[in-house]
């Protein structure tokens, strides 16, 4: 009975000590890592939702993000909507898109095995990328807002302020999701479905409705993420693709169904990456850190489980 809290304390303690060490050694890396990690978490949250509740690994995750960025870009170019404001219309547009995609495709593969779902989303991803390539070409687009590169200076450092929005939004979305899952009836149903879909169906939960809602909300959140990324990201057909893998890695690291873990994991990985990048000559290894940490976490967990 005592073992667990003690263990948690120890992990936390190690984490805190590590952070303090990094803060003294590479204070800027800590900030950069915190900012980037927030972005990883923000994008991984909806993937976790779809994977955890519907059980589908959406390989088109990053490509929906790409699409959202293009739409946001168009809103900015044609209607002069500020990218931060465009988060609102983007959320609703992608909520609707999520509904549509669910109705015409996802709905029909719910019963046909995770592999079919995987390849279906792979097909969707391919269609989005190719469409973007055909319509907008591979040439990147960027939009300019002056506040995106504003910064504050202290001592010798100049630190950007804009990217603090990433972790802020990640926390915001996390809180909103947790409220939704805890306080609303549909949210509670979703939690139940995530834990035991068959059981949930037996007690009369309309799983189809839950899946529909969860899928659309998740795609909608990608609209929010796209909005906040727009001012600082180049938009091209493959912009979002790498985030699919990173999000998947984060979810696996946090463990299915652990939304808080995604935030903590995202920020941890962001910091680890930033620290490696800041060491001259070793920047090329930063990817290895990401996947190295992931492997370490998954394997330790598997080992611990088999021990008990």
């Amino acid at each position, binding site marked *: 009975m005592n073992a667990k809290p003690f263990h948690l304390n120890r992990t936390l303690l190690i984490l805190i000590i590590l952070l303090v060490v990094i803060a003294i050694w590479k204070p*800027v*890396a800590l900030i*950069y890592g915190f900012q*980037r990690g927030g972005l990883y978490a923000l994008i991984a949250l909806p993937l976790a939702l779809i994977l955890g509740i519907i059980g589908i690994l959406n390989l088109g995750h990053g490509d929906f993000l790409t699409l959202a960025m293009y739409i946001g870009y168009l809103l900015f170019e044609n209607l002069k909507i500020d990218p931060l404001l465009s988060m609102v219309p983007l959320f609703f547009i992608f909520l609707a898109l999520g509904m549509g995609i669910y109705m015409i495709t996802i709905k029909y593969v719910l019963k046909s095995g995770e592999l079919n779902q995987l390849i279906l989303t792979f097909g969707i991803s391919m269609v989005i990328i*190719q469409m973007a*390539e055909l319509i907008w*070409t*591979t*040439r*990147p*687009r*960027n939009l*300019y807002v*002056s506040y*995106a*590169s*504003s*910064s504050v*200076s202290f001592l010798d*450092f*100049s*630190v*950007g302020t*804009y990217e603090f929005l990433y972790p802020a939004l990640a926390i915001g979305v996390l809180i909103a999701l947790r409220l939704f899952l805890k306080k609303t009836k549909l949210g509670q149903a979703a939690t139940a479905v995530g834990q035991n879909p068959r059981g949930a169906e037996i007690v009369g939960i309309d799983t189809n409705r839950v899946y529909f809602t969860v899928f659309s909300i998740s795609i909608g959140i990608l609209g929010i993420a796209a909005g906040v990324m727009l001012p*600082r*990201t*180049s938009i*091209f057909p*493959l*912009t979002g*693709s*790498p*985030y699919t*893998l*990173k999000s998947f890695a984060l979810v696996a690291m946090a463990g299915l169904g652990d939304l808080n873990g995604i935030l903590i994991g995202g920020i941890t990985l962001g910091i680890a990456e*930033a620290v490696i*990048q*800041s060491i*001259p*000559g070793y*920047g*090329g290894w*930063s*990817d290895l850190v990401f996947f190295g940490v992931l492997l370490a976490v998954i394997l330790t967990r598997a080992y611990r489980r088999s021990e008990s």
Partner: protein
Amino acid sequence: MKRSAVLVVCLAVLFSVVFAAEPIKIGAVSPLGDITGKESTRAMQLAVKEINDAGGVLGRPLQLIIMDDEMKPASGAAAIDKLATVDKVDFFVGGMGSGVHLAEIPALKKYQKVTVWIGAADHNCENAVGADADWYFHLHPWDYQQGEGYGIAWTEIAKAYNIKIEKVFLAYEEGAFGTGSYTSYVDFFNQAKKGQGSWAAVMKQFVGASFKSASLGGGDYRAILNQAKSFNPDLFVWAGYDADAVPIVAQAKEVNFTPKLFVGAPPGWPANYGKNPLAENVILYGMWSPTLSDVSPAAKHFFDAYVKMYGEEPTGYFAPLGYINIYFLAEGIKKAGSLDKNAVIKALEKVEFKDTALGEPLKITPSKVVKHQGFKYQKILQWQNGKQQVIWPLDLATAKLVYPFSFKK
């Protein structure tokens, strides 16, 4: 006697008419999904149209058969096989992407047709082609030639504008493209230390560091910009892709890093880069700019013709390169007077353009390995008021260098 002469003449005319209908087939392999491949093949079609409108070559029209290599090595190789055996083309032209080209080279070697290539700057490709391949012509400068050219350029610029360039920092993307640049800079630095090579006068100190390009999922340059900032270079160069272009200046502004010369060396630039206030006075390595129309009639002709045909401006230098590719080949065939391979090779070796769509002359010279290399150096351009102005070569300059670089408030 008279009658048979008439008959011979008639037959000859008939024959030549029939023969004229038979086009000269050129197979092009390019990544059509990519902007570079799309625009270069469009420019090729433009050139073919112009040549055919003017009566073709040797009285025969040119026919361009385009295959998409999908940026996949195996698809590129299969495309060469298809063009050679199914379409039975007489010549090959194309394409970009060293990774794809390396897979195409064994297939090209199998058919040994006269080949004029515009992209693939990696010297690995040159090595794979080998010195024996006299049928291979390469127009784009090799990676090491580009590096050499920059050294010459900065030396001349330093002298012309009386500025000091000693400390060089290279930020390079960690893939093949960036690493290739880095290796060549290291070579030049090693030479410069001995007082040799084109960089001897402008590279007293050199530091390089890699980043992950936004096009491969990176896009955070702040660590590397901070490293550069503490080095305080006179010349800061980043070798990445078009997707890095805007974020890297935005983040440079954020960390308050203002090198005196801020240079980008991507193969292409993002749409509307010039309109971005952050772009002002950023310097770029490239081969072409619309402003060349002011100083080069050939560049002006190409630009106007392209805009007229497609209703939009070409965005990068692969368009004029593709255009030149076709004209170069056509000129060789014309000079050779036949499609005989050896005659065409001999003729192409002698082709000389005083002015091209790139605004500079073209003449074939040997490079390190291959015998037939076209352009040697890139140009140095600077974004000024939303336009790419040519700074170097000095005789082609369309504007004066704005120095030093700073961010507008």
